[in-house]
């Protein structure tokens, strides 16, 4: 990626109690020259202090709201700073900084408004994914494809890129893990052009321990239903 493109790209890193991994993630991204904003979602550990100590922007939620809320806050921060491209990137080390240029390229060429990272398309990889997790993911993908009407292959992948019009158009009101499905629904309903880009997700013992549990699926369904009561 050439310097000017990196300079207009903001990487948004939502983080909740990721003191162990955030430094590594931030250093890798800083090395590539992107603008960074860590959104500390009410962590009770030193995530925010560590990030601030590395000299990157830190927005801090005083209370924990959820990853969806953290992403929305990061988007609004980056919009305020004139970002052209917005990349969401997890703080637990599962995502690869090297995937970002491929995600932003279609946006820069004007071929899409949203680039979705996928483990399951062409050269996408899910390294070290346990079999049980793969099954749960497959089910989640099938369900989300049905409920959003989008033929995506990887619905709960935290790495994605948006251009400015997509960033302004999308309004994440689902604070928790249901935000992923909401983003897809809005991509469809707001007529945003989307592409899928192969990315590599690396599962480590650390990130697996924090991963989605079966119980989370129930929570996502419940949160999605609660959205009905928004007046």
């Amino acid at each position, binding site marked *: 990626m050439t310097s000017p493109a990196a300079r207009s790209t903001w990487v948004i890193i939502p983080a909740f109690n990721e003191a162990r991994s955030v430094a590594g993630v931030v250093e890798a991204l800083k090395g590539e020259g992107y603008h960074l904003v860590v*959104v*500390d979602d009410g962590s009770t550990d030193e995530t*925010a*202090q560590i*990030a*601030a100590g590395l*000299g*990157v*922007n*830190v*927005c*801090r*939620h*005083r*209370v924990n*709201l959820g990853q969806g*809320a953290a992403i*929305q*806050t990061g988007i*609004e*921060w980056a919009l*305020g700073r004139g970002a052209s491209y917005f990349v969401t990137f997890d703080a637990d080390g599962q995502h690869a900084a090297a995937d970002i240029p491929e995600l932003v390229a279609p946006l820069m060429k004007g071929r899409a408004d949203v680039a979705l990272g996928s483990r399951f398309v062409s050269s996408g990889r899910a390294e070290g994914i346990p079999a049980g997790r793969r099954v749960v993911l497959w089910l989640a993908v099938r369900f989300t494809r049905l409920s959003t009407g989008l033929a995506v292959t990887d619905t709960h992948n935290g790495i994605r890129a948006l251009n400015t019009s997509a960033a302004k158009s999308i309004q994440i*009101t689902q*604070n928790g893990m249901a935000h992923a499905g909401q983003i897809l629904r809005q991509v469809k309903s707001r007529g945003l052009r989307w592409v899928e880009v192969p990315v590599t997700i690396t599962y480590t013992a650390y990130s697996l321990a924090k991963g989605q549990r079966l119980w989370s699926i129930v929570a996502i369904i419940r949160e999605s239903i*609660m*959205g009905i*009561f*928004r*007046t």
Partner: protein
Amino acid sequence: MTPIQVGLIVGASLMLALYMSLLRSAVWGRLLALGLFTLAVVAVSSPGLTNELAAILGVGRGADLMLYGLVVAFWFSFIFLSSRIVRLEDNLTELVRQLALRDAAKQPDGSTQSSSKE
């Protein structure tokens, strides 16, 4: 008086006492609470009354009428409370977000010194 009648009246009395002790506002809340309490005691003390009311409405028993009323009241309050909760969460989110953005913008390099205790 059957045991269940005694039990229900005791329960209603406890709820009234608790509500009255917690209530801060003036007359109307207390009047409403007393009114509801009286209705409850009347309905429990003379089950024949609820049976008559049920018959008028085409329901077999007073207890069934109470149940149907309860189901309707439940769904009304569920929908109402859910809407309130969602609105509260939206407001909370907006406040927390604006605070986070404002704090971050204040720092010279855009980062925020986080204080661990508020």
